[in-house]
């Protein structure tokens, strides 16, 4: 299904950091929402700032957000804990359109529904297997999966283990 861009995306001033601070606040909030919605729709788990240009520009109206603007948008996302930098270089970030906690809960509910507690799954089975094809967490980035499982570990619902050379997890 085609991503439906918000009205702001076709509005030329949307790509200029607004001088009126109240308006700027609305603008950045709209960008924040756009980034999250776009990533959710396209199942983007990791955003490469350089390559994210298509998101921050609209070729049809020949406008693009400046690097200062992009920086401000990412700041807002970070403040909302909706992105996490992969490293200090701030070239890539995880995008949490669902937080690791939310992913963890989603996966755990799936496990309960399938009666798979007290069994072991490999990471591969959890994200790439045929059984999970239609689940929201299909294709989940491995790093985020790990973070999600760590939240479950914290509440004693799972334990990450190595078995047979693969990474896996046991659910309780």
């Amino acid at each position, binding site marked *: 299904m085609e991503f439906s861009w918000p*009205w702001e995306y*076709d*509005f*030329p*001033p*949307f*790509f*200029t950091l*607004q*001088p*009126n601070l*109240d*308006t700027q606040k*609305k*603008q950045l909030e709209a960008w924040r929402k756009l980034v999250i919605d776009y990533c959710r729709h396209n199942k983007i788990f990791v955003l490469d700032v350089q390559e994210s240009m298509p998101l921050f520009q609209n070729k049809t109206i*020949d*406008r*693009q957000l400046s690097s200062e603007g992009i920086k401000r948008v990412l700041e807002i996302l970070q403040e909302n804990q909706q992105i996490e930098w992969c490293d200090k270089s701030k070239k890539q970030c995880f995008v949490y359109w669902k937080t690791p906690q939310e992913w963890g809960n989603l996966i755990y509910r799936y496990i309960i529904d399938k009666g798979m507690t007290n069994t072991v799954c490999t990471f591969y089975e959890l994200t790439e297997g045929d059984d999970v094809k239609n689940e929201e967490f299909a294709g989940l980035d491995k790093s985020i999966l790990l973070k999600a499982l760590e939240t479950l570990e914290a509440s004693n619902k799972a334990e990450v283990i190595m078995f047979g050379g693969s990474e896996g997890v046991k659910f309780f």
Partner: protein
Amino acid sequence: MRKRPGIGAIHKQRVEQERFRGKATELQDNVFEQMANQMEKFRTNLENFASKHRNEIKKNPTFRKQFQEMCASIGVDPLASSKGFWSELLGVGDFYYEIAVQVIEVCMATSQRNGGLITLGELRQKLIKARGKAQHHQNISNDDIIRAIKKLKVLGSGFSIISLKETQDSSDVLIRSIPGELNADHTEVLKIAEAQAFTTIETLKCKLKWDDVRCQQILNELIRDGVAWVDGQSTTKTYWFPSFFKPLINEG
């Protein structure tokens, strides 16, 4: 020799004047009484008429408007209070009250985007959408909305109506739902910006014959009010107005 008017004559004159005055007052009273009777009769007829055509008034905006004008001509305001004969007879008070509440809702929902400035056309579009599917819910006219808003104004709610042109066409009337009236200069700029949802200083200078300073100042005020946004990537700086931006208007 002609007798000069004596006290007696003056007195007599005065008495006659009094009598005339009294007569005039009496006449006035008579006429007044007749007028009052006429008005009463007229009023009763109007009420009967309203009662008979109650449904028509509710369903038909044109009819409703004519009825309103008829009432206004004899100094009767069906919207004066939400209680009382008229609103009970027609439910007319409620009808406009309902519209007024919905107008507030639409304005509150959209003011984030358009800085509290919305065209009458978009307002009506969204009101119709928000109201039920029932036929009489659909038939609200621009006139109905303006009347409802005027009632809001009386309550001092910070609503103001801005006419860009002499007509009452949907796009030529703007509703401001945030206090702080836009002055004549602001309105001039809005008139020019309306067509394409944007304008430039060059355009304003050309059409209004203002100097740079005045153009910039008015635009700055519109930016400060949250009604205008700046586009810094056009050849010359362009000033855009979400209130007139079609993709926004047509969205949800």
